[in-house]
């Protein structure tokens, strides 16, 4: 446990080295909410505003989830850099087990995501209203699981790609597919309707339905806005995603890093 805490400390120190970059990222997220979403309020069709009072209210929970995703993914870039600069030899030489090292990395990625996301989630609560204590705990628990899963996914990509370019390309593909094929920016019902009309591939509709970003965003919406209805299936999706990528990443980190 102590070894895991040391890894957490190491990764948090690294995280705060990018504080100016984080300020830039937060300001970009807030500009999305306070400029883009407010202007979109005037353009979004009545089909959407019938269920949600405004696009601003719809988008605020989604924004917290995208912030969580982007920041939890940062750990992958660091691990990829360590691998390229061969810092991983030093990490492997530390007096701790491989499992402790892997768990520490996955956990720190997730916790950093939670830390970054907290002001965005607070902004969301301020404008949409605060959930009750049980709902708040459920939101934090699901977001934490999601953060761990994202951290695991980024680590798995980082250790499987040998160059920065390959990592950035893979990250781009994962980032944008998961972002845009989810209910972060638009209601899931809209994507499903497009699929039914044959204007969107069924495979991508299914991806949007099982996407953990959709599950987490819609869960916050269901608690704060009362719509869409709370779905246990989407929470199970987040659990599955988290379990697969946490264990997958730990395994990949131990196996691949040791081989190189």
């Amino acid at each position: 446990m102590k070894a895991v805490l040391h890894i957490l400390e190491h990764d948090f120190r690294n995280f705060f080295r990018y504080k100016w970059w984080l300020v830039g990222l937060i300001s970009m997220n807030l500009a999305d909410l306070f400029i883009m979403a407010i202007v979109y309020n005037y353009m979004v069709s009545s089909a959407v505003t019938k269920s949600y009072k405004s696009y601003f209210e719809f988008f605020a929970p989604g924004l917290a989830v995208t912030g969580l995703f982007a920041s939890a993914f940062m750990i992958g870039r660091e691990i990829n850099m360590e691998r390229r600069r061969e810092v991983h030899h030093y990490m492997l030489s530390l007096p701790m087990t491989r499992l402790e090292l892997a768990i520490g990395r996955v956990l720190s990625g997730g916790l950093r995501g939670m830390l970054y996301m907290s002001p965005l989630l607070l902004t969301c609560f301020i404008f949409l209203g605060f959930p009750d204590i049980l709902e708040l705990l459920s939101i934090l628990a699901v977001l934490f699981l999601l953060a761990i899963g994202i951290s695991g996914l980024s680590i798995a990509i980082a250790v499987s790609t040998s160059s920065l370019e390959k990592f950035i390309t893979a990250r781009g593909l994962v980032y944008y597919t998961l972002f845009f094929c989810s209910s972060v920016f638009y209601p899931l019902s809209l994507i499903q309707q497009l699929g039914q009309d044959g204007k969107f591939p069924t495979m991508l509709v299914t991806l949007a339905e099982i996407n953990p970003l959709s599950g987490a965003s819609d869960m916050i919406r269901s608690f704060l806005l009362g719509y869409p209805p709370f779905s246990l299936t989407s929470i199970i999706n987040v659990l599955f995603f988290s379990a697969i990528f946490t264990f997958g990443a730990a395994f990949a980190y131990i196996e691949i890093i040791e081989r190189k």
Partner: protein
Amino acid sequence: MRAIWFISQIALFGLIASRMINVPGGTLTTDTINLAPFQEHTFQVNTPAHLSGMTINLSSFQGLGEIYVYSPNGTLVKSDDFNSSANLYSFSYDFANPDLGIWTVRLVANASADEFKLYAYKAGDYFRYYVAGLSIMTLYSAAIFIGFDIYEEAEHGVFEYLLSLPVSRRQLVLGRSIGGGLRSFIYVGPLIGVSLYVLGAVNPLSFLVSLFALFLFSFGVSGMSITIAVMIKSSDRFDILMGVLDALIVRLSTAMYPLAIVQAANPLYGGVASFNPVTFAADLFRWGTGIEAIISLDNPLLPLLGIIAFFAFFTFVGVVIYDRRIEGGGWQ
């Protein structure tokens, strides 16, 4: 990475968002009326043939009163009540393939006098609108990159070498601005090609004018990036400033939404967007690609002059700043 972003924005975000976002494709009727207590008024909206969609926006200043919307055959299709206590000051109704003829919108004031506004417009194609804006956003972020190169050169001592070359400071700044702009243009060229394919046929003359404006825009953005990089001399601060600037300059422009909507959303946002070079470039590109009906650009000369002024300003300021900040002391 940028290509993945661009393609996913078109194929995923643009495609899906265009199904939920209405963009004005031309005004059908716009009117304002002041009604005394319990007075009625009827607006008429004349719809032409083959209209794919229509949106009617109604707003009440006091948030009181009743709305009744009738189709050309006299059927009541929508009815609502403004309600200030429920924050219902405006309503927006979308009609797909609306019937040809005269639509009637009846407004009934409540116990107090009130001002009502009606804005009816044809539905535009947000997908095409967005794809055009996306090209400008990509061009902007590619042109900004030259500033990061300046830091790299400073770090490796190339900056001093460049200053020692037998060229004037003016030539150096101008060359770098144009080089940065051209480089970004070459980089973004294939993506603009994809946009043109999506947008369809273009008027060659208008397109050449807008292409010239985009060149000046990318040179101007490169000049701005160089100027800021040389001014602040700290890659960390530059990174954050560019992030914030990118967030504001792109979102407070017409790259993603028409100016009329930005102004309606917030007059301050609208004021900034009106003088934003990204707005000038996006409007000109849409004009050049023949989708100006969506933005109703009255005079393409104004944004063109705006871009020329932007380019000239940052080239001039860039030369002055270069002289003052770099001369004699190198990078540090």
